[in-house]
């Protein structure tokens, strides 16, 4: 035991030795001693020499209280020569901070005078990093927990290798310049201006909200992006949106390296509140914002108006990056429907109204309502109307591939490349139980006239009736495959047998709450608790264009006899009468009338 005791004691002493050594032999002391030595040898007067002689290493710090929360910058403990012009030739850390007219420094007869004096500004306000650290690892923010590494200089080891090379360069510091120099076209921050321009040009603003600049709701808010995220995350989220979140449907924009960098710097400069703003000013701005949309939003930089409306529309559509989501010709964003033959399947009023408020026509659409001017919308509509369909190919298989496969999928299973983003989802045409339960006439009609309230367009101007019938036959032989029984028309009234009345609606609501909310949801928006487990998803019963387009007979039939191939059960088996179904129809129709009115109001 004595030996063990001796060893343990030795360890205790050894550790003390190491700790004491660490504590009393700092790297920064060596830097400071080197600085004193060199400054002494360069001293021009005896007094200066004596002053240098008397200086002893100590922790230097700058307390910055002028800009936001107080900062403690101990950077000058190592970078002790940063304000001593004689050391411009040396290497870091004993190097003079460069002087530059771009920084506002003034050369007065060979003597530089700094505009941003270190005593007033400190260091981290421009450079980021951790002002309190005294080792390179912590001070430069190499510690990956530190949210603000030296911007443009330090890359943290957790950052992806492939992006690291893009994330260096002093231009990144413009993000910090913009904390005080908030003017949109400030000469010192050209990349902020460029990033802001791109933010509008690439339609980022349609999905993302930045307070005072844009108010998109589809994507995450970016008002404090610069505070929340490091530049590696911003870079990655722009060039590869799905890397961070697999379910993201943000498009991969075709951006050059410089453009991504400008966007990253612009976003890095968004820190919610900048140093020139007071909370009072922010509050005032917010009060005023409630009445008017952010000024910047309604006037994104526009191309010069041209005489030809179609040409101008084309210019706008290209510039606004519509193809970041949609397909137009050979450009394909892979998220939204094909616009290449929009003129053949949509008409002008529909397009114009859809531009202004996509959700008035397709209630569950993810397309943002862009706030372009009326003239812009008209030009873009004119351009889209000018896009006509090619002559349909001869065989139904090729027709399907050209017009249908983007949503319904090559195999017709409803898993087309954009199916994930289309709501209601494209019909799975291989589901025999459903396909065989409906008369073929209904499919012909859906193709001819489209399905209101959904992304299914009307193809009657592109395809002739015989082509459509051939297409339906092709779908049944190639995709449905199973042959169904002969369908017998059920004995159901064409009109709802129960006249709509407040009493009937109230009875319908009772039935609805008792029977339907599990799937269709309490709000009847198709998002009940069971809806996530059900494919196809339960119908959104507040989709007014759709609900208004279908007959009472179809609704009653769907309720009483169910919809084969879906989770909708035949409620007649559970004792529901035609009268109950009639009440339900009245209730459902009352919902869409109300919500239809609401949507119209919102669209106006």
């Amino acid at each position, binding site marked *: 035991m004595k030996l063990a005791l001796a060893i343990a004691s030795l360890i205790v002493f050894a550790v003390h030795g190491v700790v004491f050594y660490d504590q009393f032999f700092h790297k920064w002391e060596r830097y400071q001693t080197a600085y004193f030595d060199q400054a002494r040898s360069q001293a021009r007067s005896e007094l200066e020499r004596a002053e240098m002689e008397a200086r002893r290493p100590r922790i230097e710090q700058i307390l910055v209280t002028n800009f936001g929360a107080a900062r403690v910058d101990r950077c000058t403990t190592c970078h002790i020569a940063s304000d001593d012009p004689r050391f411009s030739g040396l290497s870091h850390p004993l190097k003079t901070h460069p002087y530059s007219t771009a920084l506002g420094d003034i050369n007065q007869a060979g003597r530089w005078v700094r505009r941003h004096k270190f005593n007033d500004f400190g260091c981290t306000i421009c450079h980021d990093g951790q002002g309190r650290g005294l080792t390179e690892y912590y001070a430069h923010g190499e510690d990956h927990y530190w*949210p603000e590494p030296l911007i443009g200089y330090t890359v943290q080891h957790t950052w992806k290798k492939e992006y690291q090379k893009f994330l260096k360069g002093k231009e990144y510091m413009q993000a910090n310049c913009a904390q005080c120099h908030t003017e949109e076209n400030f000469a010192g921050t050209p990349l902020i201006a460029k990033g802001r321009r791109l933010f509008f040009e690439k339609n980022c603003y349609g999905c993302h909200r930045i307070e005072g600049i844009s108010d998109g709701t589809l994507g995450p808010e970016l008002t404090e992006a610069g505070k929340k995220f490091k530049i590696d995350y911003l870079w990655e989220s722009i060039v590869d949106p799905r890397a961070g979140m697999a379910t993201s449907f943000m498009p991969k924009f075709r951006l050059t390296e410089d453009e991504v960098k400008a966007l990253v710097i612009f976003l890095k400069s968004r820190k919610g509140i900048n140093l020139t703003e007071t909370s009072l000013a922010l509050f005032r701005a917010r009060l005023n914002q409630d009445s008017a949309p952010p000024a910047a939003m309604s006037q994104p930089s526009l191309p010069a108006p041209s005489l030809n409306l179609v040409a101008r529309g084309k210019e706008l559509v290209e510039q606004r990056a519509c193809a970041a989501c949609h397909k137009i010709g050979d450009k394909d964003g892979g998220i939204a429907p094909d616009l290449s033959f929009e003129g053949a399947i949509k008409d002008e009023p529909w397009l114009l109204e859809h531009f202004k408020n996509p959700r008035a026509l397709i209630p569950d659409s993810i397309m943002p309502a862009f706030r372009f001017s009326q003239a812009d919308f008209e030009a873009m509509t004119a351009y889209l109307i000018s896009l006509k369909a090619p002559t349909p190919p001869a065989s139904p298989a090729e027709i399907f591939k050209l017009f249908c496969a983007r949503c319904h999928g090559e195999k017709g299973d409803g898993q087309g490349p954009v199916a994930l983003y289309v709501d209601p989802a494209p019909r799975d045409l291989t589901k025999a139980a459903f396909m065989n339960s409906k008369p073929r006439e209904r499919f012909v009609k859906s193709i001819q006239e489209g399905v209101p309230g959904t992304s299914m367009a009307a193809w009657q101007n592109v395809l002739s009736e015989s082509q459509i019938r051939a297409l339906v036959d092709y779908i049944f032989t190639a995709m449905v495959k199973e042959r169904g029984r002969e369908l017998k028309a059920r004995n159901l009234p064409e009109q709802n047998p129960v006249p709509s009345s407040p009493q009937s609606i109230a009875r319908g609501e009772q039935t609805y709450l008792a029977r339907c909310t599990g799937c269709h949801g309490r709000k009847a928006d198709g998002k009940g608790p069971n809806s996530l487990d059900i494919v196809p998803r339960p119908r959104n019963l507040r989709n007014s264009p759709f609900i208004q387009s279908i007959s009472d007979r179809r609704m009653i039939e769907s309720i009483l006899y169910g919809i084969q191939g879906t989770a909708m059960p035949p409620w007649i088996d559970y004792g529901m009468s035609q009268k109950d179904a009639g009440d339900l129809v009245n209730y459902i129709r009352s919902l869409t009338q109300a919500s239809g009115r609401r949507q119209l109001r919102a669209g106006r």
Partner: protein
Amino acid sequence: MSAVHDKISNDTSLSSVLRQLPRNLWSSVFRHPLPSSELGQAQTSFSNFFLHIHPVKVNRHTLKPTYTLGLGLMSFFLFVILTVTGVLLMFYYVPSTDQAYDRMLDLRGSVAFGTFLRNMHRWAAHGMVIVVFLHMCRVFFTGSYKKPREFNWVIGVLLLLLTLFSSFTGYLLPWDQLAFWAITVGATIATYAPFIGQKIQFLLLGDNVVGQEALLRFYVLHVVVLPLLMSLLIAIHFWRIRKDGGLSRPPEAEVAPGASEIAVKLVSPPAGKQSFGFMGLVRGPFVKVGNVPDNTVFSWPHLLTAELFVFVITLAAVLVVSLLFHAPLEEPVNALHPPNPAKAPWYFLGLQELVSYSAFWGGVGIPALEVLLLLLVPYLDRSPHGVGRWFAKERLLANTLFLTFALFNVGLIVIGTLFRGPNWEFVTPW
């Protein structure tokens, strides 16, 4: 010896006074010189404030390292290390949400020995949770909670709870992401108690979320309330060890005969002084002096060397770990950006794992039952057999049950710590 002492103090000339000053100072503080006789050994233990908590003599069995493993002492020394480093850290810490994290950076960056102090405090705290738990296992597996030590077991369980709570309250103080979310998760577990859950959380946090009020409350609990309570309970815990007849050991008959019979040689006490008592010769709760087989040794130096050994080992371990590993300090608090998964401190991850199955049972039901059972252990197991031996055959059932209990909790903690990834889904750590 005392005759010499008297002679010196009688000489009152100045030079003599000065010459004798060091020795007088010394002997006024330490009443006895380093003991050279058994009487001296007994007197030293008896008259020194710091030593008088020891019996003059201890049973040989108590000193067997394989019996106690020194775990109880280790817990105490960790508590001492924590107190010392904690007090030093208090000089630099401000329990304010604006300043706490900056103070951590200062400790790491510019305070002399700051990093090391923080490392020591952190690792000693984690170590104490482990060691206290192991100490409890030792006491159970050796059946040491049995009559007359029932209540000391109860105090031990309370001390375990206080240790956990001290560690939990300290976890928040660095005010980084790790701290914030661990406490948020931990405090949420408290809300699963029926009826009063929300109130408990509010009482603990002083708010509905972890914020300035919570930081202040945790600070006060951590540096004042809990250490005081623990000191009190530790004192009682120690005191009862002696009043309950020293550490548990097998009944005397079981000890192989022959090792004893070393009677204490009585040096005739100086005239006018009372004879020193054999207060240390305690077997059972009452002092017995008599001609029973003596199986004891003097505390000085045997017990003290053992204690010193445990102390140095403990200190060395804490120092080495603190030198090799830095206490974590993550991002500054961002209340809008929870890490995924947000995990409680590791010793509560067993609870969090249970909570992921059932909020009530994991957060309240099972832990409350476990604590209740632990407290009741000595009152449920009344059989007097198997005391003082590891894994005694007579205690097979009890030991198996306890082992299951311990492994169950350790297993849950291991799963919660290593095998749970984002969204609390199962992941493998390799």
